[in-house]
Structures are given as structure tokens and as C-alpha cells.
């Protein structure tokens, strides 16, 4: 199926052998926003990590298909080039790697043979413009990747990368955790204002962000399986009565 991310009966273990996901199936079409909620330990972060190919997890059964291509066994960079993006819950700090250079490199690596690479100046201008809409403390282009960033800045930086890289399918792992209301609003506005069609998986424990980004579908992930799916109203229900009935 074109224009869709299909997760088919996914079973995932940690490399040490602990079973976390027990058959997760989901289809996300471009233009759709799916929220995944659930109690701690239910497998939400594992899902995002496994989809992207995190070295700490192993897919033991099932498939991940993007635009008709089976990417299950792809390496993380191959998955990125196939159209996937992961917004980390705890973005890694990498000293000595300039934010701007790294992102430009990432953009250029996606370009096909013969396609013109983006020039440093053009890139920098675009980056500064996008960064303005997210209201960073100072010139992010000069800083090292996530180093010295506050929690909120790290999360905003993930969204900035999303805006620049324009992936076809994005998975955001708890983009709202640890954020104050202002930061949350900036991020939500940015995502809502993106000017192209993409599929979005929003992983969230509380549903703060869902006040600002309206999901089309809401799924509840408990003990490694999706136990309930519904529309945006489901999220409100959970906010009122918690996860108890699904455990």
C-alpha cells in the first residue's frame, strides 16, 4: 500500500531476551495522526525504538512496511532514508558535533545521486528561520548537538530536525514529557503548521499534547499489545478514568 506505514504483528524482545511487544499491528496513512497511550512499562518506548532499529532491541516476529517496502531488517540509516523519523524521548548529547553541520549532512545524505546538495548558506538561513518559530534561547546553529540544552530545548531541537528533514512518517516518543506549557505550545504549533503531508505517531503517557494536536486515532498499548482503539474521545476518557480498565 503506498503512502502508508504498516506495522504487522510486531513481536519485540530486548537483546537480553526479555519479551516486550507481543503482536502489535497498526496502519498509519499519510495525513493521519495516531496517538499511542498506555501505562508505564506497556511497551510504548520499545515500539518506537524497535521501529527505528535501536541496537538494544530485536524484532523476533512481524514486519514493518513503508510505502510498500519491507524495512524490518533495515539499518537505522536505511530506515531514515526510507522515510522514517524518530523524535527521541531522551535525545542523546553529542559533544563536539555542531548542530548545524550535522543536520546539513543528514539532509544531504538523503539526496539521491545527481541531486543537488544544499549549500551551507542556504541551509543555515533556512535553519535559523525555522528555529525562530520554536523560540530558542540563542543561536542554536553554533551549539554542539544537544550539549548543554535544557530538557525543553532538547525536545524542541527534535522537532526542529523534523521540520528540516521532512520525513514521510514521524514517530515522536513522549514529545511532551518534561515540558512547560509554552514549550509545549511551540512544538504543537510547529507540527500543526508543517506544510506537507506526513503520517504521525504520537507516543504519550499523559495526554497534554493531545489538547493541542488532535489525533485521528487513539490506541492503548498495555503489556505489549494494543488493547483498545478509538478516536480522540478515547483520550478524554482515559484522562478522566485512567488506564485501570485496560490492564
Amino acid at each position, binding site marked *: 500500500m503506498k503512502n502508508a506505514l504498516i506495522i504487522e504483528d510486531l513481536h519485540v524482545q530486548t537483546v537480553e531476551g526479555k519479551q516486550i511487544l507481543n503482536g502489535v499491528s497498526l496502519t498509519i496513512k499519510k495525513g493521519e495522526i495516531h496517538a499511542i497511550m498506555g501505562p508505564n512499562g506497556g511497551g510504548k518506548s520499545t515500539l518506537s525504538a524497535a521501529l527505528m532499529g535501536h541496537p538494544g532491541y530485536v524484532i523476533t516476529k512481524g514486519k514493518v512496511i513503508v510505502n510498500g517496502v519491507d524495512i524490518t531488517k533495515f539499518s537505522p*540509516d536505511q530506515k531514515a532514508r526510507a522515510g522514517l523519523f524518530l523524535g527521541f524521548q531522551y535525545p542523546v548529547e553529542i559533544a563536539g*558535533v555542531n548542530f548545524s553541520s550535522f543536520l546539513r549532512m543528514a539532509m544531504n545524505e538523503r539526496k539521491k545521486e545527481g541531486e543537488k546538495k544544499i549549500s551551507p548558506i542556504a541551509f543555515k538561513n533556512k535553519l535559523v528561520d525555522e528555529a525562530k518559530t520554536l523560540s530558542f534561547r540563542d543561536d542554536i546553529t553554533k551549539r554542539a548537538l544537544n550539549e548543554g540544552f535544557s530538557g525543553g530545548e532538547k525536545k524542541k531541537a527534535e522537532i526542529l530536525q523534523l521540520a528540516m*528533514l521532512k520525513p514521510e512518517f514521524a514517530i515522536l516518543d513522549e514529545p511532551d514529557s518534561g515540558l512547560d506549557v509554552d514549550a509545549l505550545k511551540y512544538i504543537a504549533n510547529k507540527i500543526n503548521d508543517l506544510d506537507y503531508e506526513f503520517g504521525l505517531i504520537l507516543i504519550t503517557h499523559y495526554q497534554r499534547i493531545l489538547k493541542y494536536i488532535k489525533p485521528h486515532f487513539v490506541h492503548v498499548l498495555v503489556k505489549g499489545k494494543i488493547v483498545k482503539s478509538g478516536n480522540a474521545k478515547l483520550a478524554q476518557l482515559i484522562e478522566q478514568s485512567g488506564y485501570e480498565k485496560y490492564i
Partner: protein
Amino acid sequence: MEEIIVKQNQELIFPVIWTGKEKELLYSVRLSQRGAKITFLALLLGKNEESLDIKTTVIHDAEDTKSEVIIKSALNDYSYVNFEGLVKINHGAKKTNAWLAAHMLLLSKTARGRAIPSLEIIENDIKAGHATTVGRVNELEMFYLTSRGLSEKSAKQLLVQGFLQSIVDRFPKKNQVIAAKQLQMYGQKYL
């Protein structure tokens, strides 16, 4: 042996760059006046069959002294670095702050590294620590970069350069130019 004396309330940044010429580098730092602070930064770039024996000794003999010894090394081909670092905090050197770190990145199957960061402490009103890492680039950092679409090769290159650049960034301004040049030359061939 190079003896480094830091005076009262002086803050000294002492950079070292090794690109294969010397076989042995010995340094001795004495902090015997109150408030003396030293930041010792070594950038070691190994290739071919070069080997280096680098030894540093830092002695804290006065109150309120601070030392930070950071060794960052990238080793390719058959190169080898042996680092022995000793930090000694003598009795009476209260409020001393000492940190010793040696990080070695092995870039080829035949490169080797040895690190012995030692502490001898005879005063308890202090803070001291040390850390060592030897091996290849960090797995999680590689995942982060590749998940953004960088190939493994590009990601590794970026990480190694970043690793080395982060210490050059701390060199005194006047030494940064030479350091950057050496890094670039090393990078061209090896990264």
C-alpha cells in the same frame, strides 16, 4: 620530563598535541600554592606504527587547588598509546577538586590502548574522580545519528571528529589554529 608550576590563584590551560613524532612524553604538575588551577588537555592522534608512552603526575599540596587532566586519543593502523596518570592529593590540601579522564578511540582492528589513571589521596575534604573509556564509538550515539539518515561511515566520522574537536575547543585560542589543522590533516586520511 616537563615540570609545570602553577602559581597562587593562577588558572593555567596546558595543551598537548601528539601526531606521532615523540615516543615518550612526561609531565609533572605541582599545585603547591593556594588557588592554583590546571587544565591539562592532550590530543593524541596515532597512525601507522607510532606508539606513545605518556605519563602525567599532578600533586596537590595546597588548599583550594583544582586539576583537570583530559586525554583524548584516536588510534588507527598499528598505533598504540600507553597512558599513566597519577593524581596525588596530600594531607592538608583541603577543598581540592581533581578530575582525571582518559578516552581512547580505536579506529582499526590493530590499534591498541592502555590506560592507568591512578589516584592517591590522603585528605578527605576533597572531591576527586577519574574516568576512562577505551574502544569504539558509542552505540547509542551511532543510533541517533544513523536514525537521522547518516550512513554508518558518515556517522562514525562525525562522532570521531566531534570527540576530538571537543577537546580542541577547550585549547587556548592561540593553540586552536594549529590543533584544527592537525585534526583536519589526520581526518583527511583516516576519517
